């Protein structure tokens, strides 16, 4: 048997096959979560009708199910609807673009060590000998020592799908959306790479397992690199084109952005790729800053010790639970904060996040040179960076737009010396006001 065919390869293949399905189902249900969360934020109920009864009387007890069948119904509808190709599009690129965006989104997650180290022993209690005894393996898609670079490189490929989708549609809205998305994604890639660099400087390795190990020994990196954590989280929101950075598909300005002309499954692929990117990026965030599969900070339960199959499943469940929690937090952000204007998004990347992340990298490398990489020292360095950034803030390039022009009669920017009336002047507005104490109880 060749040397490359070993227990690690089989474990990797099994992990990949299981995790692809887990991630795709998670993506489908994240759509459902998103609709539920947005509904609760907007004081609605959200999807609550579709169950798993398929209209059969025999399965009537599966009706309702708080709308959990919605994702399945959506999937079936996506396949059965008309996949329309408008007449003027570039047909080859138009068909290829969804494939080009979904492939990088799906292949990035394989360096994430979901289950930590497995002892390689599968032993059922009623059996005398273990079924499998293969020696220690890592439950990861690909146990490579340049994992971080691989994930960054693959995630960056997603830009091509967006660009091609916008270009091939031959639609001005799509084209503008694609341009905006490209510029935004490449801009936020720089602070993202730099904040990862700040972590790698402490860890001293590019492997995913080494990052996890460092955190079991020295505490979670979110405590020693809080600035890098915040920078990375903002960038991962912007990279996946989600609100408050979703200018590429701003409905009020660009209809649907780069997927305006798409329908049926090809549209769903753009949608799925966005969620897959989100899950991969959040899993990477959990791996880098939030202690991978450890449930509590400062307490190492499993660490990188090899565990049995139940321990591996528990670790993977905790990892996935953290990812889903963080994604849901991102959804709350999405439905709470209004969209930034496009020039504000770009200004934020180039004149705030990039200088700040450069500063964090320089500070970290100086601390590494001094040999003071403990949590207290790193916190002090981060605080110094923050103070320095606040002091430098008045000298950074500023947007020329967004100034208030004084106007006669305006309540918000009156001309100097003008009397201002802040009470509502409109008769209708006055009439609409509730009168104190007379509102009827309902």
């Amino acid at each position, binding site marked *: 048997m060749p040397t*490359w*065919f*070993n227990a*690690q*390869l089989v474990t*990797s293949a099994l992990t*990949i096959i299981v995790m*692809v399905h887990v991630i795709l189902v998670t993506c489908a249900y994240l759509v459902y979560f998103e609709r539920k969360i947005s509904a609760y934020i907007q004081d609605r109920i959200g999807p609550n009708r579709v169950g798993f009864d398929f209209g059969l009387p025999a399965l009537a007890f599966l009706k309702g199910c708080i709308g959990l069948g919605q994702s399945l119904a959506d999937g079936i509808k996506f*396949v*059965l*609807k008309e*996949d329309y190709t408008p007449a*003027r599009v570039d047909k080859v690129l138009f068909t290829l673009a*969804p494939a080009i965006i*979904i*492939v990088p989104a799906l*292949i990035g997650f*394989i360096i994430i060590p979901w289950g930590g180290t497995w002892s390689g022993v599968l032993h059922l209690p009623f059996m005398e000998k273990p079924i499998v005894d293969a020696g*220690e*393996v*890592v439950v990861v*898609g*690909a*146990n*490579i020592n340049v994992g*971080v*670079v691989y994930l960054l490189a693959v995630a960056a490929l997603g830009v091509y799908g967006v660009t091609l989708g916008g270009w091939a549609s*031959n*639609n001005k*809205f799509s084209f503008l959306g694609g341009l905006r998305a*490209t*510029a935004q994604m*490449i801009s936020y890639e*720089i602070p993202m790479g*730099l904040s990862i*660099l700040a972590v*790698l*400087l*402490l860890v*001293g*390795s*590019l492997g995913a*397992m080494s990052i996890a*190990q460092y955190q079991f020994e020295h505490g979670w990196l979110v405590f020693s690199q809080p600035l890098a954590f915040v920078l990375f989280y903002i960038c991962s929101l912007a990279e996946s084109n989600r609100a408050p950075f979703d200018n590429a598909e701003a409905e009020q300005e660009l*209809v649907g952005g780069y997927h305006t*002309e798409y329908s*049926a*499954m090809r549209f769903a*692929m753009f949608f799925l790729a966005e969620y897959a990117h989100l899950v991969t990026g959040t899993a990477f965030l959990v791996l880098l800053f939030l202690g991978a599969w450890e449930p509590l900070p400062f307490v190492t339960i499993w660490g*990188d010790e*090899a565990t049995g199959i139940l321990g591996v499943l528990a670790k993977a469940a905790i990892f996935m639970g953290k990812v889903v929690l963080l994604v849901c937090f991102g959804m709350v952000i999405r439905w709470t904060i209004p969209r930034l204007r496009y020039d504000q998004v770009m*200004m934020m990347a180039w*004149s705030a996040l*990039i200088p700040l992340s450069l500063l964090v990298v*320089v500070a970290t490398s100086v601390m590494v040179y001094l*040999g003071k990489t403990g949590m207290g020292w790193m916190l002090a360095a981060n605080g110094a960076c923050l103070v320095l950034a606040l002091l430098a803030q008045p000298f950074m*390039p500023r*947007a*020329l*737009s967004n100034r208030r022009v004084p106007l006669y009669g305006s309540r918000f920017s009156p001309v100097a010396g003008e009397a201002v009336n802040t009470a509502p002047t409109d008769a209708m507005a006055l009439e609409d006001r509730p009168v104190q104490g007379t509102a009827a109880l309902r």
Partner: protein
Amino acid sequence: MTTALAATDLGSYLPIFLIVMMAITFAAINIGASLLLGPRRPGETKGGTYESGMNPVGTARKRFNVRFYLIAMTFLVFDVEIIFLFPWAATFSNLEPMGENAAVWLARIGFFLFTTVVMYVYGVRKGVFKFD
């Protein structure tokens, strides 16, 4: 450190081919299934470009703002710099702190970063990052 960490042989890259094949198959099956199973009802107006109900004027193959080109060029500079920084970051913390080697490495990378800062300041002065 467990023994499972050592993964420097090329064999550990094999699963990447597996996942790439799976992703391509997934994409192909999805696009094919929806093309085969869905109805086909083409029409003249339906095939037109959707621009919020307006009749489209010209095509989308037009000139666009040069600013996007400038952003892309600046991005290239930064991205290449970051790629060079990754191997440095992976090695730097393994050097002896305050040692002579570490001082030289820090000074070299400091100069490298300084060139980028010069580029950034030049860009700011030229108005590359001004969006209006």
